[in-house]
């Protein structure tokens, strides 16, 4: 499905990604974990064409999208739920969700999906007409995830979806991710909550200062001493 080879990214003089290669096979959940500043978000941004890649190749569905524009990448079926929520503050919750389905044409199904999002996050339904800018941090996070769900992509990339959510909701989030995956959407997940992320993942990668240092199935990594020590805080 998605295949990244030898990806390099610079921010000015900072070498943020140093030859990343990873793969998201069909119908799978892939997790990406790593310390702060390891370059996880940068990897996702680079895939979306939001930061310039200095070297490397990205292919999606056998098509080369290395130098495609963001809007075309979205068009081809990859959607990113970005770090820092990025909801549209002047639009209502309902409008934000509608925009999530911007590229979709199937009106009926969109309506159903919206209903589904409201079921997942009842809080959003309560505040349907509130401007997104005035929501609390966690409510915005729910909205951002909901908006990403609305786009029904082939590949959904989530950048720390559980950030700022209450424990109860965090648990939900992971079951939601499962559900989405079961509905046929591939997932590339970044999480700080390494335990949950590894439990859910079919395959996972560990990043450190711009490179991938470890990879394996979720179970393998959960069992790894290195991961245990560095990320699970055990």
């Amino acid at each position, binding site marked *: 499905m998605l295949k990244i080879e030898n990806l390099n990214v610079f921010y000015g003089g900072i070498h943020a990604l140093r030859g990343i290669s990873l793969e998201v096979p069909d119908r799978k959940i892939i997790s990406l974990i790593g310390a702060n500043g390891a370059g996880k978000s940068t990897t996702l941004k680079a895939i979306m064409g939001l930061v310039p890649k200095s070297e490397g190749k990205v292919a999606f569905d056998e098509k080369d999208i290395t130098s495609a524009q963001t809007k075309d990448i979205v068009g081809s079926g990859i959607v990113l739920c970005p770090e820092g929520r990025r909801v549209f503050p002047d639009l209502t919750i309902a409008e934000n969700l509608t925009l999530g389905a911007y590229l979709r044409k199937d009106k009926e199904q969109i309506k159903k999906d919206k209903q589904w999002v409201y079921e997942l996050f009842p809080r959003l339904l309560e505040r349907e007409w509130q401007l997104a800018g005035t929501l609390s*941090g966690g409510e915005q996070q729910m909205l951002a995830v909901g908006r990403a769900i609305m786009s029904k992509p082939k590949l959904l990339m989530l950048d720390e979806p559980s950030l700022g959510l209450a424990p109860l909701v965090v648990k939900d989030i992971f079951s939601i991710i499962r559900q989405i995956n079961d509905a046929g959407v591939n997932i590339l997940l970044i999480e700080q909550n390494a335990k949950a992320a590894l439990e859910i993942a079919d395959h996972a990668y560990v990043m450190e200062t711009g490179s991938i240092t470890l990879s394996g199935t979720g179970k393998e990594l959960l069992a790894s001493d290195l991961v245990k020590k560095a990320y699970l805080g055990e």
Partner: protein
Amino acid sequence: MSKQNLLRVSDATMQFGGVVALNNLNLELNKGEIIGLIGPNGAGKTTAFNVITGVYSPTNGEITFDGEVIASNFPHGKMKALYAGQNAGKYTKSVVPTPDKITKKGIARTFQNIRLFKDLTVFENVLIAKHLNIKSNVFAATFMLNRKEEQQMREETMELLKILDLETHKDDIASSLPYGKQRHLEIARALATKPKLLLLDEPAAGMNPQESDELKNFVARIRDDFNLSILTIEHHMQFVMGICDRIYVLDYGTLIAEGIPSEIQNNPKVIEAYLGVDE
């Protein structure tokens, strides 16, 4: 140690149009304590911070800090008809401070969404927070007649950076720091104002368990080193339970529980509204 009250929030209600974000909150904090404020998303935790720090003036209620009323309000004007809370007639004073006044009185905070001075260096970020105690006027400062004071501000800043392990990043631009360091810097900046009370809004958000553990120790350390009291919002339960002396739980703007961590952890109301059951 005898308990000496530092902060008291009495009957604070905050209403945005029809939304009651904070409903009759009563909260107390004693000197030297670390208090946790938890609750579901949108429960009104950040709003409580905003009311305490003067970002919002409460619709009704009163805040006392160190024995002094620092903010007080009652429903009037447009709010009078709309007001949906309780204790409407209890307060009659209107004390509306600006956030800088509150900071000067000794309450400093960090933000849920990091708000650093992005284009300035780490050093400058902290140095700016020293400005509030400046004694010399603008002329003296411009014509460098306050060299001693300036020198002292810089030295104190350096010292703070050293204590907080940010010394190596001194000349880095704030926005280029990794997320975790930015959180540290925000705390450093708040400490530079020499507060008695520090408010932390989700300090561990975006950190992995390992990092959040480190942060826990860090917060405990600064409490002792700087003789602080701390009020913190956090969704990482390990962090909250591990560090807080007492915890307040909010839901829909209302206080649903209060107590020491072990009590809270087993409080059915809290479990239902917030924690959920462990599988």
